[in-house]
């Protein structure tokens, strides 16, 4: 009966060997397609998600997405290096005060296309927040930020890459004209004078810090 066991014997070592032989090839020709983005995200200075849109199923669950964001944040928040290869993807990023903007694409994607989307993402939100790119202002204008993100990318396709066009499409409310262009009367006529005062304070603060 013992002869039955003959074939069993080699398996462990052989299997392991065959498995490892399959090399992990990178590169390759890009399939011509409009789908060029995997994700857009804005994180705060603790790496928490303020906004994140995923456009393919690289990370199917919220848990995996957040784990990815945390890892990405840990790799990027200290060195402001603008671009990183991360988990087999190309991520371009930009930060200001307490906000981190990310654009993620496949590792074969043209890095400059990703960078152009990042610029549009950042600049349009900067215009919406009246150059006040920090967490508080972002949260106060979350509706417009959502709309801007929606206008920049639709399901992974770059919809618009010109920040001015994006801001125009988002069409912020009339009272959101930059403070400098508002008359005092208008400012006082606003429903929420406290808010105006606060945003004025903020602006002064940031202009001093710069």
């Amino acid at each position, binding site marked *: 009966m*013992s*002869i*039955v066991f*003959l*074939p*069993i*014997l*080699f*398996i*462990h*070592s052989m*299997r*392991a*060997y*065959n*498995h*490892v032989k*399959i090399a992990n090839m990178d*590169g390759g*020709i*890009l*399939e*011509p*397609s*409009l*789908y060029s983005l995997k994700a857009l995200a804005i994180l705060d200075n603790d790496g928490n998600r303020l906004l*994140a*849109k995923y456009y393919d*199923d690289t990370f199917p669950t*919220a*848990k995996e997405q*957040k784990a990815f964001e945390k890892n990405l944040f840990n790799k990027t928040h200290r*060195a402001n*290096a603008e*671009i*990183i290869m991360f988990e087999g993807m190309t991520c371009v990023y930009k930060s200001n005060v307490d906000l981190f903007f990310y654009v993620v694409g496949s590792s074969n994607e*043209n*890095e*400059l*296309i990703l*960078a152009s989307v990042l610029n549009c993402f950042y600049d349009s939100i900067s215009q919406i927040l009246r150059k006040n790119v920090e*967490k508080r202002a972002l*949260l*106060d204008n*979350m*509706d*417009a930020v*959502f*709309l801007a993100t*929606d206008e920049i990318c*639709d*399901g992974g*396709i*770059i*919809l618009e*890459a010109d920040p001015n066009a994006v801001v125009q*499409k*988002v*069409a912020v*409310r009339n009272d959101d004209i930059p403070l400098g262009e508002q008359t005092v009367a208008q400012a006082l006529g606003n429903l929420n004078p406290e808010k105006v005062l606060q945003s004025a304070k903020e602006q002064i603060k940031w202009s001093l810090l710069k």
Partner: protein
Amino acid sequence: MMMLKRDKKEEEEGGGNPFNNLEKSTVLQETRTFNETPINPRKCGHILTKLLYVINQGENIGANEATEAFFAMTKLFQSKDPILRRLMYMGIKDMSKIANDVIIVTSSLMKDMTGKEDQFRGPAIRALCSITDTSMLQSIERYMKQAIVDKVPGVSSAALTSSLHLSKTSQDVTKRWVNEAQEAVNSDNIMVQYHALGLLYHIRRNDKLAVTKLVSKFSKHTLKSPYAYCLLIRIATKLIEEEDAGSGSPMFDFIESCLRHKSEMVIYEAAQAIVQLKNTTAKDLAPAVSVLQLFCSSPKPTLRFAAVRTLNKVAMKHPAAVTACNLDLENLITDVNRSIATLAITTLLKTGSETSVDRLMKQISTFMSEISDEFKIVVVQAIRSLCAKFPRKHSVLMNFLASMLRDEGGFDYKKEIVDCIIATIEENPEAKEAGLAHLCEFIEDCEHTVLATKILHLLGREGPRTPTPSKYIRFIYNRVILENAAVRAAAVSAIAKFGGHCEELLQSCVVLLERCEMDTDDEVRDRATFYVNVLKQQQRNLSSAYILNGLTVSVVGLERALYSVLEHGLKHVCCTGLTVSVVGLERALHQYTLEPSESPFDMKTVPLATQPLADQKVRETPGLAGDVGKPEKSAATRQDLYAEQLAAVPELANVGALFKSSQPLEITESETEYYVQCIKHTFSNYMVFQFDCTNTLNDQVLDRVTVDMEAADGFEVVKQIPCPSLPYNKPGSTYTLVHLPEDPTSVTGTFPCTLKFVVRDCDPNTGEPDDDGYEDEYVLEDVEVTVADHVQKVMKPNFAASWEEVGPENELEDTYALSSMSTLEEAIKNIIQYLGLQPCERSDKVPEGKSSHTLYLAGIYRGGHDALVRAKLALDTSGVTMQLTVRSTDPSVSEVLATAIA
């Protein structure tokens, strides 16, 4: 005091975030406010933003809750507030996948889509398409066509991108919008142009001629959008790749002209495309390399990164082309972005001369600890190519690799290093001893079982052939004492190989193995017991069959199968050194247990394990293409799947066990009315031809589809199993069973094939076929049966031992002049293709500059006969001369193989 203050401040900040600690249930409660009249746009907008925020945070919302919130949201259509309306569109999109009955908003969205407010129209189209399925698409088709050619860019872009999303499920409908897309490409708006080009290509991507026309048209007529240019470059690159054309192609001229475009994005895309092409010479690469060189000194990190990464790719194939950039790359070594620095160094390693290796290696070691594992892997790969390029530097490189092995690192990184050392050992005999010594040291302290077993296997294979095999045994035996069961088992196998190969070590190995017979793990014990018994026989052919060239099956499957045998109390099981597939073995044993007989179970009835095949090319089903599908992972191999599929056909019972399945072979053009692929399944006395047919005409249903085959000499068509019905775009299979000729030496033939069927016309929209049809036929390409169809590839790690094991009994030898071959590589490729055997001991690779070579091939012939071939090749002025020696366990097999080449 300070602490207190800070705490207070943080608290304030937390309070300042209106979205902090938002409760999903509270927000869902708040959505009831939407039902109030009159609507307060500000308040509702705020609540809606909160809802979007909660969804965006990844909160799981149940279908009922979502539906309730969704219906509350629909009330907001009464308000004209632009922000509120736009937030609603986003809400509809976000909830379209979770809420029920979302189609309720279709008419409201259609109103907005065709309304006067331009800023509503684009987003409304996108929201509408997210809730539309194929059945409803008909009703909005007219509006979509209009929207594609709309004057407002936002509307046109929205319609174009949505069409692309829709084409994933409704390819046929969006196909009809090709004229509108064509018109939109001429738009002045750059984004519309880009989206239209993308859609146009997507619709036509299977029609090569149309794509060629598309590229040549738009490469002349200048596009405005840089994005569209990038897309066009990718399309052109794909065409060049498919046609296997080189730099002579007009497509290549177009890509090259893009190197002078004003946008950096386009220049880079073109450079990258040129670099990726296969048939490029150093001269074609030069202009691309020089623009990348310029980018290297850009102030933008992204541009530098892109340039270095691409140069790194060039360096893999054409290191000489990159040497011009060496100075720029040296400057990047100190770049603040570590990724750029690492890529620069590894590129330099590839392009640098032998003298600079030491200096660069020193420089790398200074920052190896700072970079991520991904980049460490890039460095290891660079070292791997260096090892191949400068074999004399192996000691420096090996030491570096050894020190990296000792450092911290993840599994992938360690695996890459081990692979690199193994590759170097295999290619460079001088590095073998040092490499094996490093690996021995590594397994002394290796946490990864997979790597340890892999290294032990390698030691077992390479160690016995070194001048002093005894020194490795200590390392291996240490594993037996210290490691887990899997590693111990591998170590036992490795020791046995030393015993089998080196006679002077035989006694010591037996002693060591006998100690393992007391192991706590059964696997280790069984292996040890078995090896001790085999080794004590002291017979070379036994050692060869059972130790040096083993079987490759998985333990689990085999054990399960054997268990079922034992359960039925069967005593006679004999097996010979075959390579069997697990699933097949299991099935065969099962069959055996069902039909109890006195005859012993024969392993020859079990299908062979297939060599890992290159990724199987599945034909994209139209409609699903465009997005990159994840490679399917299945435990069973392709052949096991086929076996299962065939077993499900009742008419094909009793043909025996499946021996081999060929690769699918297209026997029609891929763009014809009926698309047919043929797969040849070989059994011991039969051959089953499986025809996978797809009907690409949406106005026809085919019934009773069969393939008529004219049998070649000696073959006999036994049975046809029709495919009962073949509706549009649903693949179906029909089978033809052929009895193989009685004469064991006549095994090849050509079969002219005709597809026969009954056509019933049907309405393309409803798919409802007419009652009566008519018979029709369609001529297919011939199907050839070759020698390779009767042979299964088997890897023999120790060919010489197998060669002796089979013996000269049925040896046949002949000499051929292969005048049509001009190189040894070409000859080897053709021989392997004709015979369908597995090249062993890397004999398919010819060392450079050699004019003679010996190729070793091994396999199993139909019926379970071992087949070994030794081909001695010599290159001279008139071509390649080959002396072919065939050994096999059956005389007719030798004859078939010896005559296959002629």
